[in-house]
């Protein structure tokens, strides 16, 4: 039987759709894809771009592929409000973090110093604030509705109005996202971001896929149904923090963490051993794609419509930003937008013969794993 509608999609400019379409059409896939990018939903008023992405990702999920995306670094308000005055922020979710077929990863902090793991936020001394909230484009998927409903009915602190109460809540999980060490251009940097949390969780899923494949099982595929069915038993529940700031300002808009799932850290940070047990050792938990539970596509017109605040305050309360960095933070902890070349001296990395002067990092790849010496 022929389909009733045919949409000819001719667009080579949308990166996500092009990527997802190529992915769905490819005969060879990776089992896990990690996306550290996003675009504000407010830029996707056409909806079709986001919907096309979802359609393609749904196809690859059905083939056993897991797609993870970063929840964003600018709180609930999103990057378009990065420099907004407090009174002019708005909720602006990030896509594809809001895609129901993507497992979205937020960021925490505290792990690096052995202190309590809390939501990663600039008002706690980080360079970013973990993104989260509710989609204005996509409804909450069936497996998620119960936890979203619970959060909205009993939030720890009532959020400023203006967010969708029916949209897909995100993130789904979290992981440390503060003070990662990376090598870039031969120099050592410390990095904050859900871009750090996401590939780390992706690596965990790859390890689980490796174990499942070795046991003769399928890959985990679309992960969200299994995560929500577990009730978050695999997670370290994060109950401190909020996402009311962006990476450089603070807003009225934002949510607070709560016991269980919340739109700041999802179920919490991933305990690998517990997730491994859930997805590898529990036969009945093997994820599967339940098409009957897939959100209806496309959503109704009302679901597509960005939500306006239902209650507008007549005066804007003042917001006191606590900007004192934690004691463990280096003094150079201000947000740095990487637009210029570094001008400061690079840190020394260990060499076989440490010297008292900064050393030049090797400029070529070793041809084989070199033997490491103890750092100075």
């Amino acid at each position: 039987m022929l389909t009733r509608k045919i949409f000819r999609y001719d667009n080579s400019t949308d990166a996500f759709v092009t990527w997802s379409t190529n992915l769905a059409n490819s005969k060879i896939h990776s089992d896990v894809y990690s996306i550290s990018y996003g675009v504000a939903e407010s830029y996707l008023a056409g909806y079709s771009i986001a919907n096309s992405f979802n359609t393609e990702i749904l196809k690859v999920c059905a083939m056993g592929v897991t797609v993870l995306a970063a929840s964003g670094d600018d709180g609930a308000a999103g990057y378009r409000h990065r420099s907004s005055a407090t009174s002019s922020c708005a909720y602006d979710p990030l896509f594809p973090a809001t895609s129901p077929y993507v497992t979205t990863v937020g960021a925490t902090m505290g792990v690096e110093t052995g202190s309590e793991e809390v939501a990663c936020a600039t008002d706690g001394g980080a360079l970013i604030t973990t993104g989260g909230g509710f989609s204005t484009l996509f409804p909450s998927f069936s497996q998620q509705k119960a936890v979203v409903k619970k959060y909205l009915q009993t939030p720890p602190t009532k959020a400023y109005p203006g967010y969708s109460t029916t949209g897909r809540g995100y993130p789904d999980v979290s992981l440390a996202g503060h003070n990662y060490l990376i090598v870039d251009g031969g120099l050592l940097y410390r990095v904050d971001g859900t871009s750090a949390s996401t590939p780390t969780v992706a690596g965990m899923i790859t390890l689980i896929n490796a174990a499942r494949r070795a046991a003769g099982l399928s890959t985990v595929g679309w992960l969200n149904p299994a995560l929500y069915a577990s009730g978050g038993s695999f997670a370290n529940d994060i109950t401190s923090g909020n996402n009311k700031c962006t990476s450089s300002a603070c807003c009225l808009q934002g949510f607070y963490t709560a016991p269980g799932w919340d739109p700041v850290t999802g179920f919490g940070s991933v305990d690998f051993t517990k997730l491994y047990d859930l997805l590898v050792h529990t036969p009945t938990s093997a994820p599967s794609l339940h098409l009957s539970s897939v959100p209806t596509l496309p959503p109704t017109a009302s679901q597509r419509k960005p939500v306006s605040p239902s209650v507008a305050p007549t005066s804007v309360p003042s917001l006191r930003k606590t900007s004192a960095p934690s004691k463990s933070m280096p003094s150079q902890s201000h947000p740095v937008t990487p637009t210029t070349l570094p001008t400061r001296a690079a840190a020394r990395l260990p060499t076989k013969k440490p010297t008292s002067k900064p050393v030049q990092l090797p400029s070529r790849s070793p041809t084989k794993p070199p033997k490491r010496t103890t750092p100075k």
Partner: protein
Amino acid sequence: MPYKHISSEAIYFRSSVYEIPSTLTEHVFAIYNIMELPFLNYENRFQGNYRRTLIEDGDLTSSLFGYITPAALNSFYNIFTNQGNSLTSQTIYSAVGQYFSSDDLAIFQFYFEIPWHPVDLDVNSRDQPSQCNDNPNNCGESNLDLQYIMSIAQNTTTSIM
């Protein structure tokens, strides 16, 4: 929203949303010639999600206390193995204009005592160490992604596309 073509001066109308009445749906077989026009300044709207600061000489202590490393992640999150296998695979999405450095990856793996493993498949020829050396802003996102996904899941086919 109307647009006039520069040379032909033909008028085109752009709409961010279109629908057909539900009463017609039953009778519509196909809709042709629908074009998706690009967003203006789309790339500017496409955001990576990281911020960074250069580590200056003296900031690091030998214990690396206060920083996240692959070992710290393994310890805190109970990652009891980093051994993937050849039966599975993983990929990093990389935006247009982003590169990575196999040299940086090798240094990272050396420094953190991770078995050397280069990227197995570089779909769009993103491995451009000179780009990273000239301006690390060109590589930060992909370097971060690759260094950590490959430190958590080792011995696994890893791609960037």
